[in-house]
C-alpha cells in the first residue's frame, strides 16, 4: 500500500513538473474550452431575463455561477481519450504494459491527477476574469466548499473509469467512432454539461438519476453553486463513491475478458 502511494505521488510530481513547463499551451487549451460554456451561459441568461428573471430555478447570476464552475469541472473530466486505445494497441504499448506488474490504469490516473493540480492552479485567474465579466451569484458555505473540493476528484475518478471502459471496446472492434460519438452525445445531454438537468424534461431527469454521468459533472458544480442541504451533500458524495466502486468492478471484469481476448488473438 505504501509503495502504491509512493508510485502515485511520483507520477503526480512528474506530471506537475512537466505541465508547468507549458503554461501557454495549457492556457490556450483552456481558453478554447471556455467558448462552450460562455455560449450556453449567454443564451440561458437571455432566456432567464425574458422569462422574468429566472428559468428552471436559475437566475442569470446563478447561470453564471454554474457555467464558470463548469469550466473547472470540465477540465477535471478530461482523461485519457478512448480514441487513444487504438493507438496503444497498435503501437504495442499495451502489450508492453501488460508485462509490468502494475495495472496500466494506475499510470494514467497518477499522471493525469498531477496534471489536474496544474490545471487547478492555472484555472484560478481564469475564473477570476470570468467572474468579473459575468458576475456570478456565489455564496457557498464552508461545507459546500469542502464537499466541492472532494467532489471534483470523485468526478475525475468516475470519468476515468467510464472512459477506460469505453476505450476497451477497442479490444473487440476497430470501428469505434460510432460508439464513442454516441456515448459522448448522451453524456453531453445527461451529465449537466449542456444545461443544468433541472431544465431538462422530467423523464430525462429521472433517467439521469440512474446514470453515472451527472455525478461526474453536475453534482460537483451544484455542490458549490446551489443551496443544497448538508445531508444531501454527503449523500451525493456517497453516490460518487458508489459509482467509482461500481465502475471499477465492471472495469476489472471487462479488462480481464478483454486482455484474454487480446492476448489470444496474438496482438
Amino acid at each position, binding site marked *: 500500500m505504501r509503495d502504491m502511494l509512493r508510485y502515485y505521488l511520483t507520477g503526480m510530481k512528474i506530471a506537475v513538473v512537466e505541465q508547468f513547463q507549458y503554461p501557454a499551451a495549457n492556457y490556450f487549451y483552456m481558453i*478554447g474550452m471556455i467558448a462552450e460554456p460562455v455560449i450556453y451561459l449567454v443564451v440561458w441568461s*437571455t432566456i432567464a431575463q*425574458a422569462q422574468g428573471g429566472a428559468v428552471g430555478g436559475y437566475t442569470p447570476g446563478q447561470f453564471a455561477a454554474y457555467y464558470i464552475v463548469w469550466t473547472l469541472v470540465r477540465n477535471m473530466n478530461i482523461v485519457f481519450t478512448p480514441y487513444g486505445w487504438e493507438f496503444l494497441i497498435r503501437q504495442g504499448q499495451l502489450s508492453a504494459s501488460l508485462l509490468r506488474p502494475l495495472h496500466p490504469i494506475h499510470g494514467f490516473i497518477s499522471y493525469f491527477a498531477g496534471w489536474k493540480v496544474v490545471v487547478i492552479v492555472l484555472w484560478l485567474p481564469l475564473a477570476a476574469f470570468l467572474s468579473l465579466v459575468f458576475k456570478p451569484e456565489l455564496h457557498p458555505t464552508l461545507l459546500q466548499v469542502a464537499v466541492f473540493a472532494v467532489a471534483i476528484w470523485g468526478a475525475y475518478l468516475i470519468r476515468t473509469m467510464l472512459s477506460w471502459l469505453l476505450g476497451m471496446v477497442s479490444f473487440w472492434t476497430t470501428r469505434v467512432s460510432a460508439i464513442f*460519438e454516441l456515448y459522448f*452525445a448522451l453524456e453531453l445531454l445527461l451529465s449537466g454539461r449542456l444545461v443544468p438537468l433541472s431544465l*431538462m424534461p422530467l423523464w430525462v431527469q429521472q433517467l439521469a438519476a440512474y446514470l453515472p454521468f451527472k455525478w461526474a459533472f453536475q453534482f460537483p458544480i451544484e455542490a458549490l453553486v446551489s443551496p443544497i442541504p448538508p445531508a444531501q451533500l454527503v449523500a451525493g458524495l456517497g453516490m460518487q463513491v458508489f459509482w467509482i466502486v461500481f465502475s471499477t468492478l465492471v472495469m476489472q471484469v471487462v479488462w480481464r475478458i478483454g486482455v484474454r481476448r487480446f492476448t489470444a488473438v496474438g496482438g
Partner: protein
Amino acid sequence: MMNMSLFRLAFIYFRVGALNELQYRVNFFVQLLQSFIALGVGLVGLGLVFSHTTDLNGWSRPELLAVMGVHILMGGLISAIIQPNMQRLLDDVREGTLDYALTKPEDAQVVVSVREFRLWRFVDVVMGLIVLSAALFQLQVRLGVWQALAFVTALLLGWAMIYAFWLMLTSTAFWFIRVDQLVNLFEGVYAAGRWPVSVYPDWLRTGLTFLVPVAFAVTVPAEALTGRLTGQTLLGAAALAAVLLLLARWVWSRGLRAYSGASA
C-alpha cells in the same frame, strides 16, 4: 491575383482530393454519423430553449433553425476546404517542407490554399441545406431571386472573410512556432455562431464580428433569408471582406519573405 488561374488550380486539386477521398468510402459513413449526431444534439438544444421561451432576442424558432442550418453549411465549407489547407500549411512551415509548393509556377498563396480538399465534409453542406430548407418551409418564406442572391453573396463574403482570418492566423507560424494551439481556439469560437450574434453581450458581439468574422459567416447570411438583411450590411460585408483579403495577402507575403530568409 484573382484571375482564372485560381479557379483552374482549385478545380485540379479538388479533383485529386476527391479521387483520394473516394478511396476511403468508410470515411463517408463516419462523417455521416458524426454529422447526424451533431445535428441531433443541436436540435435537442434548440428544443430545450424553446421549451422555456417563445423567442430568443427576437428570433423565432424556425428562424433559429435557419441560423443553425447556415452554421452547419458554413462549417462544412470551412472544414472541407479552408481547414485542411491551413493545417497542412502550418505543418509545412513548422517542418520546413513548404519547398515544393514554392517551386510550382503558380502563385504560392493559391497553391497552399487549394491543394487539400476533404470531400466527405460536404455531407455537412448538404445537411445544412436540408435544415435550411426545413426552416424556410416552416417560415413559409417564398424565396425571391434577390433574396437568394443576397444569401449566396453573403455566404461567399463570409467564407472569404473566414479564409482571410485563417490565412493570417496560420501565417503567424512563419514567426511564432507554437501556433497550433491558436488553431484550436477557432473551433470553440465558431461554435458561438450557432446562435445569432445579437444574443451576445456587446463586447463579445464585436469580437465575433471584427476579430473572428463569425457574424459575417453565419448570422448575416441567415439574416438574408429571414428578411433582416439591409443593403448597408451587405455593402459593409463586401468592404470588410476586401480589406481582410488584402491584409491576409500582405501578412502572407511578409511571412514568405521571412521563411525565405531564415530557413536552410
